[in-house]
C-alpha cells in the first residue's frame, strides 16, 4: 500500500513498459512470419489482361475514371510512339529526300537538257489562255502554297538549321510566326484551291491523246511532236494530284487546325502523318510545276502573267487547242493599245482538253 501510494506514477510506467515488451515480443515474430500468400490474396487483384488490352487500344472503357476534367485520354498513349517513329524516322528523312532529290533532278535537267525553246519565231499574234479571274486565283493560291510550304518545312526541319544559326530569340519569333501563318493561311488556301480546281476542271478531263502524250514523255526531250489540247497530260496529272492529294492535305489540315471540335489525339496523329506525307509530296511535284512554268520552257510564264500566249507557243505545246482557237488570235499591237480588255472573262473554246 505504502509503496503504491508513494510511487503511483512509477508503477504505471512499469506496467506500461511490461505491456509494450510483451506486445513487441508477440507482434515482432508475427510480422516477420507474415504469410505472403495471405498478403497476396488480400492485395490488389491485379488488373486483368482484358483491361490492359483496353488501355492499349486507346479507348476508355465504362470502368475507366480520370480525375482530369473532360479527359479522353487513357492511362497510356499507346499510339504515341508509333506516331513519333513514323514522323521522325520516315516522314522527316524521306520528305527531305523527295524535295532535295527533286531539286537535284531539276537542276541536272536544266544543265543537261536546258530550256525548251519555241520551235519557230513568235508570230506576234496572241491567244487568250488564262482569263483575269483564273490568273488572280492562281497567283493567290501559288503565293499561299509557297508560304505554307516554307512554314511547313520550317516546322519539320527548321530546328536543325535556324535555331543553331540564329539563336533562341530569333528562332522563337520565326517559328511562332511560321505556325501562326501556317494555321491561319491554311484554311484560306484550302478554300481558294477548291475554287481554282472547280474553275479549271473543264480543261482537265482525261482524253485518249493524253496516253500518247505520256508515251512520248510529253515531248520534253528532243523534237518529238505530241498532241495536246488546252491542258497536256502533265498538266492534267498536276491537276488531279491537287484534286486528290491536295484535298486530303486540306482536309487533314483542318483536322489539325481546329482541335476544338473534340477530335481525339489518335485522330490528330494520323491527320498529321497524312498531312505531312501529302504536303511534302505535293511540294516536290510543285517544284517541277514551277520549273516548267518559269525557266523550263520559253513563253509559258507569260500565259499566266498576262493571260495571253503566242501562237507559236500554242502550236508547240497545245496543238489541238491551237487548231480550235487560231482564228481568235489577236495581234500584239492591238493588245498593247488596249483594244482587248486584259483577259476577258472566258477563255476561248473550252471544249478541248
Amino acid at each position: 500500500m505504502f509503496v503504491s501510494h508513494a510511487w503511483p506514477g512509477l508503477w504505471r510506467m512499469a506496467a506500461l513498459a511490461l505491456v509494450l515488451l510483451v506486445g513487441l515480443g508477440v507482434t515482432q515474430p508475427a510480422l516477420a512470419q507474415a504469410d505472403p500468400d495471405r498478403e497476396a490474396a488480400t492485395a490488389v487483384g491485379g488488373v486483368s489482361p482484358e483491361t490492359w488490352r483496353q488501355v492499349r487500344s486507346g479507348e476508355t472503357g465504362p470502368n475507366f475514371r480520370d480525375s482530369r476534367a473532360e479527359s479522353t485520354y487513357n492511362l497510356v498513349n499507346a499510339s504515341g510512339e508509333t506516331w513519333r517513329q513514323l514522323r521522325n524516322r520516315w516522314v522527316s528523312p524521306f520528305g527531305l529526300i523527295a524535295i532535295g532529290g527533286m531539286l537535284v533532278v531539276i537542276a541536272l535537267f536544266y544543265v543537261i537538257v536546258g530550256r525548251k525553246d519555241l520551235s519557230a519565231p513568235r508570230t506576234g499574234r496572241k491567244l487568250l489562255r488564262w482569263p483575269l479571274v483564273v490568273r488572280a486565283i492562281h497567283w493567290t493560291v501559288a503565293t499561299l502554297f509557297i508560304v505554307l510550304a516554307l512554314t511547313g518545312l520550317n516546322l519539320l526541319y527548321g530546328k536543325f538549321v535556324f535555331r543553331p544559326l540564329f539563336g533562341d530569340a530569333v528562332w522563337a519569333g520565326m517559328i511562332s510566326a511560321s505556325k501562326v501563318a501556317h494555321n491561319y493561311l491554311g484554311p484560306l488556301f484550302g478554300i481558294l484551291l477548291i475554287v481554282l480546281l472547280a474553275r479549271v476542271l473543264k480543261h482537265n478531263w482525261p482524253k485518249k491523246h493524253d496516253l500518247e502524250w505520256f508515251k512520248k514523255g510529253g515531248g520534253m526531250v528532243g523534237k518529238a511532236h505530241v498532241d495536246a489540247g488546252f491542258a497536256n497530260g502533265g498538266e492534267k496529272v498536276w491537276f488531279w494530284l491537287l484534286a486528290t492529294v491536295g484535298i486530303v492535305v486540306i482536309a487533314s489540315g483542318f483536322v489539325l487546325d481546329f482541335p476544338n471540335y473534340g477530335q481525339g489525339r489518335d485522330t490528330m496523329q494520323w491527320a498529321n502523318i497524312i498531312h505531312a506525307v501529302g504536303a511534302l509530296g505535293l511540294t516536290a511535284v510543285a517544284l517541277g510545276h514551277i520549273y516548267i512554268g518559269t525557266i523550263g520552257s520559253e513563253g509559258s510564264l507569260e500565259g499566266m502573267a498576262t493571260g495571253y500566249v503566242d501562237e507559236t507557243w500554242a502550236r508547240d505545246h497545245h496543238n489541238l487547242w491551237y487548231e480550235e482557237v487560231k482564228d481568235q488570235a489577236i495581234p500584239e499591237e492591238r493588245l498593247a493599245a488596249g483594244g482587248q480588255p486584259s483577259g476577258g472573262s472566258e477563255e476561248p473554246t473550252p471544249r478541248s482538253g
Partner: protein
Amino acid sequence: MAQMKFMCDAERCIECNGCVTACKNANEVEWGIQRRRVVTLDDGEPTEVSISVACMHCDDAPCMAVCPTDCFYKTDDGIVLHDKDLCIGCGYCLYACPFGAPQFPQQNAFGERGKMDKCTFCAGGPAETREEEYQKYGANRISEGKLPLCAEMCSTKALLAGDAQTVADIFRQRVVQRGHPDGAWSGNPRADADNLAYDATHQG
C-alpha cells in the same frame, strides 16, 4: 547526379486526389490545367486500381524528339523542362507523350492552343526572375532542396518522387514485405509462376 523519377505504388493509391490538389496549389497552374491526374481502372470491380499520373520525365522523352521548336531540355537531374517562350502550341508533344502530360489552355481564336503546360517536377523553368519563373512554370522546390509537393503530401506514400535508385529501393522493399506474387500489379501470369517476391521474403 541524381536521376529524378516519379513512381506511383498502385497498391497504396487510394484515389484521394491529394496529389492533384497539392500540385495545383504549389504551382498555381491556370484554370483548366491539371498537371497531375489520378486514373482508375476497373472502377467498381474487385480488381479496381488507381494510379497517379503526370509527366514521368522520360530518359528518352518523346516530347523532346518531336518538338518542332526544340523547346524541351533535360536538367542535370534528369528532369524534362520546356521553355514557354519557344513553345508555339502545336500539340505534337501531346500526340507523342505516353502519359498525356502536356496540356494546353484553349483560350485563343479557333481553338488555337496556348503555350503547353506540364509537370516540372516542381523544378520551375527558364526565366529571368523567380517571380517570372513562378508565374510561368510554378514552384521551383528543387532549387530549395525540396521534392515535388504531390509526392511529399501523398497521405499513403503511394506516390514517390526522388532519385530513381532511392525510389526503386523503397518500392522493392515494399514488394518484398508484402509478398505480392507479381512484384507490382500487372497481373502477369509469368511473374506469378516465378514468384520472385515470395522467395525474397523467406530469405529475410
